């Protein structure tokens, strides 16, 4: 396992920007999650590190080696593709064994059998080992494609939304399992996801991308509690952060045009009066959709209490995040 350093990486596809001047250090043994909407450059970053695409400019260092001119095989990275990319002419077993049989690893047969069995067990696909890759469900394909990476011990694992098409139960299981594997191997892992729970639970570091640029990099708590822009603030949090004009509550520092208010950062019983529009009982929590001077606000309420739509409720902000007109944080 190794430290991976990206220095001023840029890559464009014609007029489309893939990544722009991206610098990031992925510490050895870190679990780095990249967040960002479609087109932010997450997959491009993975492809540049893997060597499938060549950067227009910038450097990639893996384990102290500048790998700019190396082939994917020489870089010794494992990748889980969003589209699975299982070899359709091979069985699940042969798909898992494929990287181990490569001329670079050239693993002995008994070692291959052992590793394949181990990974198949973790991913709960033992009963499918002799199926053709085409005879699997989407979730099974996704697990095989994770397994094809996990049989190896590369410098870095690159994973592109590896849990996206699993059902909820399996996703939870594998999330825990992936984190356990990563921690026990001390593996370096770069992980792309849209899922906040995955980001918060697995990551040691989170990188937020916007239009090919890295806009913030830090621990999940830093990113959540201390976002440096409106954009970062709205990437994490469920329900999403409430964005309101600064003058709704007043009291913001000068230059503030908008404030961001996490749903849990709203106190009740005091302050401005808002109307309850809708109540959602989720069991462990209750979400209230409020209307405050024409602005929609979502907040979380005590699941034991009773709320009726149409009633009024006094609310006040706690720890609002202040942003200027460009969406930058004002501290």
């Amino acid at each position, binding site marked *: 396992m190794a430290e991976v350093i990206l220095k001023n990486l840029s890559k464009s596809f014609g007029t489309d920007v893939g990544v722009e001047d991206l610098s990031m250090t992925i510490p050895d043994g870190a679990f780095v999650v990249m967040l960002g909407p479609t087109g932010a450059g997450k997959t491009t970053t993975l492809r540049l590190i*893997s*060597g*499938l695409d060549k950067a227009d400019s910038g450097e990639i260092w893996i384990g102290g080696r500048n790998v700019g001119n190396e*082939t*994917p*095989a020489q870089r*010794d*990275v*494992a*990748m889980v*593709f*969003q*589209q*699975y*990319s*299982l*070899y*359709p*002419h091979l069985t699940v077993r042969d798909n898992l064994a*494929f*990287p181990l049989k*490569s*001329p*670079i*690893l050239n693993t002995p047969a008994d070692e291959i059998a052992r590793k394949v069995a181990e990974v198949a067990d973790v991913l709960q696909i033992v009963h499918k080992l002799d199926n053709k*890759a*085409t005879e*699997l469900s*989407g979730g099974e*394909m996704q697990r095989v494609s994770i397994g*094809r990476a996990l049989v190896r011990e590369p410098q870095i694992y690159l994973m592109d939304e590896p849990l996206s*098409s699993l059902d909820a139960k399996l996703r939870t299981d594998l999330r825990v399992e992936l984190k356990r594997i990563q921690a026990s191997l001390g593996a370096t892992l770069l992980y792309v996801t849209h899922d906040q729970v995955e980001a918060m639970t697995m990551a040691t570091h989170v990188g937020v991308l916007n239009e090919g640029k890295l806009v913030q990099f830090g621990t999940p708590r830093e990113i959540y509690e201390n976002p440096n822009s409106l954009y970062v603030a709205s990437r994490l949090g469920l329900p999403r952060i409430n964005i309101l004009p600064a003058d709704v509550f007043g009291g913001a520092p000068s230059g503030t045009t908008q404030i961001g208010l996490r749903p849990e950062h709203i106190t009740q019983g005091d302050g401005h009066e808002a109307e309850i529009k809708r109540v959602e009982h989720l069991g462990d929590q209750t979400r209230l959709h409020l209307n405050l001077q024409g602005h929609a606000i979502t907040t979380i309420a005590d699941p034991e209490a009773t709320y009726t739509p149409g009633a009024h409720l006094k609310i006040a902000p706690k720890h609002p995040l202040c942003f200027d007109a460009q969406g930058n944080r004002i501290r």
Partner: protein
Amino acid sequence: MSSFSVTEPSNRSKWFAGTLVILYALITMVPLAWIMLTGFKSPADAISYPPKVVFEPTLEGYVNLFTTRTRQTPEFLAANPPETWYEEIVREYDMVIAGPSKFGERFLNSVIIGFGSTFLSIFLGTLAAYAFSRFKIPLADDLLFFILSTRMMPPIAVAIPIFLMYRQLGLSDTHLGMILLYTGVNISLAVWLLKGFIDEIPLEYEEAALIDGYTRFQAFYKVVLPQAATGIASTAIFCLIFAWNEYAFAVLLTSGTAQTAPPFIPTIIGVGGLDWPAVAAGATIFLLPVMIFTILLRKHLLRGITFGAVRK
């Protein structure tokens, strides 16, 4: 009305389609059946009118195809009784077998040249098609058009220059010459067909193989080739059928050593009068390799192995 389904054709339309297919198959198979039956007829039966469908089968045509025969005096025939079943057949015409005919050799030539040029066309065609499909080649479209342009006239239109060139190069009547010629004609077909097939194989598989520790060529060999098997098989059949059946160049450029079966079979007619059963026997045997080749590759012709393991 029993059951109505939008996707499932009704019984009546199935029945209708089935009948059409059977009728079409019968029509196309009549000439084949005719040739195969004629091979087992006696010369008299072969030319009788109306044609005989029921007749007494004989292997005379096949014996005549594979042997040369000479007429002998009654004294010689009496002194040397026939020893084998095929000599007995020949004796009915007061002849003895003088030796094997050239058919075996010519047939072997056809096999060498047909399969040799098919192999070479597929080998070169697959590499070229892969390159055209995957790499940025300057002027790729023009090159592809240029390759195809070799098929824009009947190949025989260039027969005279090729004839002269081959004589100069010493390629006339050689196996190599014929293999190169048929490969030259087939390669454009092979490149175009195979490019289509390889284009359909998602790039993701090779990318996965590159990351899994393989070189570009190994990825091609281990991942692309198995998935292109369908395309390769059908292209090979087309190439073989062309090379196997080619007549004009074979007549023009081969006469002895490298003569293939197509120009040879008609010469049987001249050997001992109009020996239709021998010609038919030759044609029947000539059909077999392409038939067997096609049947062997049939399982690869079924589509479907490349679908399903990449999420679209």
